[in-house]
């Protein structure tokens, strides 16, 4: 690591563009493998999707291709307090997808069967009574559900901030308010130009979230990243009635009661995302159905008041699964972005596998479905 003046060049083993949970986590695991790492963040760590998501630590309902990485990540989550010396607000809790009709329940049962056949047993079917054992406040009309009982939730900013601090303790350097400009490669070394000087490394990880498509594109790799702004509502404190994180099979919803009694409601409805202005905006007319869904599943919510909302800018891929893996075009370039509003739980697992891939040139993790090559034109 050679510090230099504003116009000089700093050299590292790895430069990560993007200080979200994936970039920070890759920086941590790469540092643990002995690599010198610089993380370049144009705003502040966890400013966007990593600090502003709903905090669900969810394996339930994932795309089949994501399950192995999600499973590995879950193991890291179970030990997150020891890994990071910070509890991250992580709590194990059931994640439940509620079926409101018999047809929805049949669909969930079919999925549970498919997963069993693949060798996964974390998703189980709850019948009418089983659903009510976990969700006593659920509306009468709900017929059952699909559950992953040992999933959970955490505090998004607290988690990513803790990952950053541990990575720094292990030697990684974080440069905030430091936007990656022109990127090029000479003599096998990536050069990332910034207003703060040039950052050089033989390996480069693009973990720039909603902004990653532009970086990949500038390097000649198509990656159609859409900027989206998932929205969350927070209610006043209400008496404890729910221990699980709840979704619905037939309507977009993510619902959980926090330990302090407030209820966080999100799921699917999107606000206005402005990548260029670095901001997102809540659109309340889009939230009408979210409010309706929450009340229809939990009649107790009728009298709750919304006291806050938030949203953040997130990157979404057309097929709703991320890009994870080496560049299909350049040596020494890697990608981890486009988590399409469900990347938080995968953060530690993806960081670990990216560090393995970058440090050793290979990983056992099945990442082929996530190759950027699927968007090649």
């Amino acid at each position, binding site marked *: 690591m050679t510090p230099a003046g504003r116009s000089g060049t700093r050299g590292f083993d790895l430069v990560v563009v993007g200080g979200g949970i994936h970039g920070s986590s890759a920086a941590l695991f790469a540092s643990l493998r002995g690599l010198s790492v610089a993380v370049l963040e144009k705003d502040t760590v966890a400013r966007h999707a990593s600090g502003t*998501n709903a905090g669900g630590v969810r394996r339930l309902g994932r795309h089949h291709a994501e399950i192995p990485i999600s499973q590995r990540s879950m193991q890291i989550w179970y030990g997150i307090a020891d890994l990071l010396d910070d509890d991250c607000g992580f709590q194990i809790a059931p994640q439940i997808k509620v079926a409101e009709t018999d047809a929805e329940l049949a669909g969930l049962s079919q999925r549970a069967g498919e997963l069993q056949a693949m060798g996964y047993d974390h998703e189980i079917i709850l019948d009418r009574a089983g659903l009510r054992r976990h969700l006593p406040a659920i509306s009468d009309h709900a017929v059952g559900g699909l559950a992953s009982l040992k999933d959970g939730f955490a505090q998004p900013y607290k988690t990513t901030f803790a990952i950053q601090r541990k990575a720094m303790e292990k030697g990684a350097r974080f440069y905030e308010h430091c936007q990656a400009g022109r990127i090029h490669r000479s003599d096998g070394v990536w050069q990332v130009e910034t207003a703060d000087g040039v950052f050089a490394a033989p390996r480069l990880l693009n973990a720039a979230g909603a902004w990653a498509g532009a970086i990949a594109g500038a390097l000649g790799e198509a990656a159609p990243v859409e900027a989206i702004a998932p929205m969350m509502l927070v209610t006043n404190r209400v008496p404890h009635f729910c221990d699980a994180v709840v979704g619905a099979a037939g309507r*977009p919803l993510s619902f959980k009661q926090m330990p302090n009694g407030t209820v966080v409601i999100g799921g699917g409805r999107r606000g206005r995302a402005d990548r260029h202005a670095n901001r997102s905006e809540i659109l309340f007319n889009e939230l009408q159905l979210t409010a309706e869904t929450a009340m229809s599943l939990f009649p107790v919510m009728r009298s709750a008041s919304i006291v806050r*909302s938030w949203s953040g800018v997130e990157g979404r891929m057309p097929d709703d699964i991320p890009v994870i893996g080496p560049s299909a075009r350049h040596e020494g370039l890697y990608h981890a972005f486009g988590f399409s*509003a469900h990347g938080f739980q995968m953060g530690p697992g993806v960081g670990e596998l990216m560090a393995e891939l970058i440090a050793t040139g290979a990983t056992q993790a099945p990442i082929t479905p996530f190759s950027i090559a699927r968007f090649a034109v």
Partner: protein
Amino acid sequence: MSARSVDLLVIGAGPAGIAAATEAAGLGLSVSVMDEQSRPGGQIYRGIETASPKRLAVLGKDYAAGRSLTESFRSSAAEYLPDTLVWNIGSDRSVDFSRGGRAQQMNPSAILVATGALERPMPIPGWTLPGVTTAGALQILLKSSGIVRDNCVLAGAGPLLWLVATQMIAAGARPAAIVENLPRGRIVAGLRHLPGALRAREYLFKGLAMIARVKAAGVPVYANATGLAIEGSTQAEAITFSSGGRQHRIETDAIALHQGVVPNQQITRLVGAEHRWDAAQACFHPVLDARFRTSADSIYVAGDGAAINGARPAALQGRLAALLIAEDQGRRVGTERIRRLQAGIARDKSVRPMLETIYAPAPEILAPADSTLICRCEEVTAGEIRSVVDLGAPGPNQIKSMLRAGMGPCQGRVCGLAVAQIIADRKGETPEETGYYRIRPPIKPITLAELAAYAPDEDAPRAASGDAAA
């Protein structure tokens, strides 16, 4: 149901808001005024329409002067929407509001924010105990229901502290004491601005008369007090401080704190307007041009929400802003009128440098002890904020994520300035560099049921829905 359009929406029915609405309606603009209260007047003229002659006498002639403002407003063509909560303003200037338990939308061509001032938080040990209130809250009780508190200690500083004391005396409830926490030398420093202030000398005479009346009534006044703290376990029992080289302890179960007022930033922050830190007054101001325009398109601010000047200049500013808004919307407006209003505002403002020098917030309020609560909604102390800054958290939004400071029912209105200042001091930067909470809607709570019934634009296509968020 489709949202209504108006030329001008005024938010707030205090002196700036109602003067602006009256003026704008007179110029032929379609005007709506939304306000949380049931009657016009704002906090300064609260209860003015219903005050008895006796209450008017207690509250004084400056208060009574508000009646002509509300009368003109009532007889103007401006639409008045009382008991109305504005809870969101979109980047397209659409305004979401609630009235009678029903969420609705309005699309004004221009918005005048006239939401006035808030009392500055005065975090001292024990400030959140029951029995402790603010001088402003005490005065609102007096204005709206004639209620006074006996044996009350007024502590802090600012013109309002003396005004409330004289009003309490007139109402027959003499305060137990005034504990003024200004550092020594403030009066001398303020006198430097006396020549300028003499342009609006009636303010100075009024101030001196208030102080004389309080002293004549035999109220003990402790000057240059430091180390203010409130004792009590479940309720305020006493206030302690040093003054005149001695330690004092006054037993009381009623304490009203005051450390001046600051612009209410909730709406100007919500719309993303630019703000600037005023180091002398230790508060943020929205950045305005000479036509009361913020950096957000067609959103204006008049009155104490722009900068603290008081009720009379607020009304003049409201009138002037209305004229300029009309002009911005293509109406012809007399330049002589504009010039006269500008001169009136400048005259009233001439007293401010002196008042602001004398009554700048006491240093100990700006640097609370580690154990003092800062965010009372979520019970976060100054020490907790400092320790998270030491971990590397860069600003108020990260403090909010880590500690929940500013996440409670008040949405950071009470703690925001104190949090920004504590972080800035710890990092050795200015609050302007540190920044402020991102203010997210709803800025006033709405029920889930109300949101579920909300359909401002039935015909608009909805965005496609995706997977549940992580």
